[in-house]
């Protein structure tokens, strides 16, 4: 245990599902417009999880009208209302950067079969 963990503990979120590279997720992001607030959903595949502890983050990639869009979220940010895992993907590496060079069917991730 690190000495700074006592500070981190109150900022760590415990309501998040276990995320893994290859998972398809819906990230509900709180967006502030003026003094109003609404929730926007960002749906895509997790292509990387980086860092650990309070500074852990994950990158979600989606295809928006033929354009690849990536967003990186801090794992424990209060700006994210909730994260839904839609399906687990079968992948063989931790960072899925190769998806950027692929389009269409080749960019699909196989669903993980539970044994």
């Amino acid at each position: 245990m690190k000495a700074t963990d006592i500070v981190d503990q109150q900022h760590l979120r415990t309501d998040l599902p276990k995320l893994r590279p290859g998972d398809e997720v819906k990230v509900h992001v709180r967006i502030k417009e003026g003094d109003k607030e609404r929730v926007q959903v960002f749906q895509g595949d997790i292509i990387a999880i980086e860092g650990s502890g309070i500074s852990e983050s994950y990158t979600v990639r989606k295809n928006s009208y033929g354009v690849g869009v990536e967003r990186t979220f801090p794992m424990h940010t209060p700006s994210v209302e909730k994260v839904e895992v839609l399906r687990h993907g079968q992948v063989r590496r931790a960072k899925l950067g190769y998806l950027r060079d692929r389009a269409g069917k080749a960019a699909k991730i196989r669903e993980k079969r539970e044994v």
Partner: protein
Amino acid sequence: MAQKAIVGEKVGMTQVWTQDRRVVPVTVLRVEPLRIVQVKTKESDGYNALQVTYGQKDEKKLNKAAAGHFAKHGVAPGRRLVELRLDSVDGFEVGQEIGVDKLAAGEIVDVTAVSRGKGFAGGMKRHNFRGQGAAHGNHKHHRAPGSIGQRSFPGRVFRGMRMAGHLGHEQVTILNLEVVQADSERNLLLVKGAVPGPNGGVVIVRDAVKGGK
């Protein structure tokens, strides 16, 4: 000088989220309750300061001088003796305790500590010199400082010429850092940004001399 000052030990860096959901990088300082050992005044010592100690230390491990000093003022021995220079020491007395609650979130402070020692360092690391090229026939002079003077006039190297030498392990003060949180329950002080020195180093925190503008 300072209106108020406390001393703590650096624990390390981490990050916290603010109310408006922004990430703030913070340095965590452990500020154990300070016990005033001696009040120094302009009349008696020539300057105003509080001599404080914190933590516990086995009385058997003290040398005679320190043991006598603590005994004379009737204060339980602590790990270190630190002097905090103040504008005025009115209202402070020996044995009194000072805690983190002296500071509050949002206050602007100056932080003083001894930086990490880097040993004997060259001009590039010590003074941000540019060094020399990698190519064009350069041989073994990639990190050399270059010329350090002129010709037979003046025929000497000027004093203060920046050269290689010892870097670090000197007192460094960082001005105008913001207090993010002062937690008197757990004796922690969270200061926005970086603080000089290694984890475990002694850090003096005082209110900003330049007013935090």
